[in-house]
């Protein structure tokens, strides 16, 4: 496979790199080290700049007004966009815009009018409600939240956990069990209004990611109109699953971005810090860490870009996406860890972004499916089994 960048891709990568280094990084000097929001004036100014560059709304399909960026180029951009302190979870502080919830592009026209278009205009915000206290790695079987038909409505009871943004959302995509006799064939996807009676945000869930929290939700006889079923009844898991593989590619790319920046910092520090009369870079112990970092970064990058190429060719990419996510999240953690070791005491401080990346990248081995589940996905594909 030819992983050489085209001239256009090189230009785009260079543009995004300069944007991050010239516009984003300098602003972070004045922000709280755990901050995740820019000053509104800076945010608006940078959004205007990104629109001028033609990159706003990166993940919005062309048919809905998004820029025509293929997934390979999108992946390369994601690697660049993560290369700053908040970059792993808030790449460029969101100034490139978002598509909202990708599942909404599968909605019918009435639902698009009520949820998708207002979301694209920035008037509404949604959340994705899949994981439950009973488990997140096997949602099709773990989902206990039930939806029971009552006249023209469905009545939802149950709860969700580790849900981002639900406390600020106007609506959410909620997966509930509509047939208890079936596994993944008994799940339905609902569009739920956050101001409906019976919708409760029970608590904030604090995590390693100290800049942002998750929430725990409870549904008490929450009534949802049949018009708010997304897709078909009992076919909801497919809606979730289709997007999960695709999302693993930019997820991996973010880990690579942080690793690239950590390695850049480690090399720079190793070349200037002196111990026992010579620079750190002259020590074999440090050289090997730098080399191991590079191997981790290049391996992750090749796998991730290869997965993006397969997705771009509309070929099956489930194994490749799982492999990219697994390798990039684990390798990224190792790179950040080594970079901290090279920086010594400074690596542990909030003066540098390494400690934030160290905490946040640990979550990446669990988020979007833990490493063990990625291995399970690959094993199923490789062995061709229908085992559990």
């Amino acid at each position: 496979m030819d992983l050489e960048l085209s001239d256009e891709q090189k230009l785009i990568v260079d543009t995004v790199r300069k944007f991050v280094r010239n516009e984003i990084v300098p602003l972070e000097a004045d922000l709280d080290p755990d901050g995740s929001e820019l000053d509104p004036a800076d945010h608006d100014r940078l959004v205007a700049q990104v629109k001028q560059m033609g990159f706003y709304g990166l993940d919005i399909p062309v048919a809905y007004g998004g820029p025509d960026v293929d997934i390979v180029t999108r992946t390369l951009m994601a690697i660049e966009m993560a290369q700053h302190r908040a970059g792993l979870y808030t790449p460029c502080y969101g100034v490139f815009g978002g598509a909202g919830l990708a599942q909404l592009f599968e909605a019918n026209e009435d639902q698009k009018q009520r949820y998708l278009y207002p979301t694209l205009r920035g008037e509404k915000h949604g959340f994705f409600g899949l994981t439950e206290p009973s488990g997140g790695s096997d949602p099709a079987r773990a989902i206990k939240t039930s939806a029971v038909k009552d006249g023209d409505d469905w009545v939802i009871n149950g709860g969700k956990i580790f849900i981002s943004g639900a406390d600020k959302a106007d609506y959410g995509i909620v997966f509930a069990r509509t047939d208890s006799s079936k596994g993944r064939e008994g799940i339905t996807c609902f569009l739920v209004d956050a101001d409906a009676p019976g919708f409760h945000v029970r608590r904030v869930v604090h995590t390693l990611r100290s800049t942002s929290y998750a929430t725990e939700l409870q549904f008490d006889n929450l009534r949802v109109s049949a018009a708010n079923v997304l897709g078909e009844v009992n076919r909801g898991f497919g809606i979730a699953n289709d997007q999960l593989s695709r999302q693993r590619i930019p997820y991996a790319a973010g880990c690579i971005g942080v690793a690239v920046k950590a390695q850049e910092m480690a090399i720079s520090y190793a070349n200037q810090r002196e111990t026992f009369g010579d620079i750190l870079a002259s020590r074999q112990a440090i050289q090997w860490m730098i080399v191991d970092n590079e191997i981790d970064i290049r391996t992750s990058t090749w796998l991730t870009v290869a997965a993006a190429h397969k997705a771009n060719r509309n070929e099956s990419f489930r194994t490749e996406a799982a492999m990219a996510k697994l390798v990039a999240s684990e390798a990224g953690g190792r790179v950040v860890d080594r970079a901290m070791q090279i920086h010594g005491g400074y690596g542990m401080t909030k003066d540098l972004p390494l400690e934030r990346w160290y905490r946040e990248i640990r979550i990446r081995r669990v988020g979007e499916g833990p490493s063990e589940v990625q291995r399970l996905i690959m094993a199923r594909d490789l062995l061709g089994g229908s085992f559990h």
Partner: protein
Amino acid sequence: MKLHLEKPWLEFSAERVARLPGQMGVFQLADDAGRVVYIGFAGGKSLFGLRSELEKRLGSAPQFRYEVNNQYQTRWRELLMLHVGAHGAVPEMNGHEAVPKLGRLG
């Protein structure tokens, strides 16, 4: 960790503040009746953590309490959200500063 900050109020004096830890965390200021008038945090940019953030506000309220917490950003938002949930608005002195968009609990 309890949802609400329920520690007893302390006298907000220079002597008390001087003995505070230099760690990161959250704090509340209150009037004589124990009504919360400000919720703040000491983050990674606070020179001496809670001590320096509270020193800056000496004289602005008679009582305070604090919690050492590395998750100061999310804990701060949580305390503000709880306050808004109970009182309908952020504490009086927070109203004079930029406050992030808050979610709702309940």
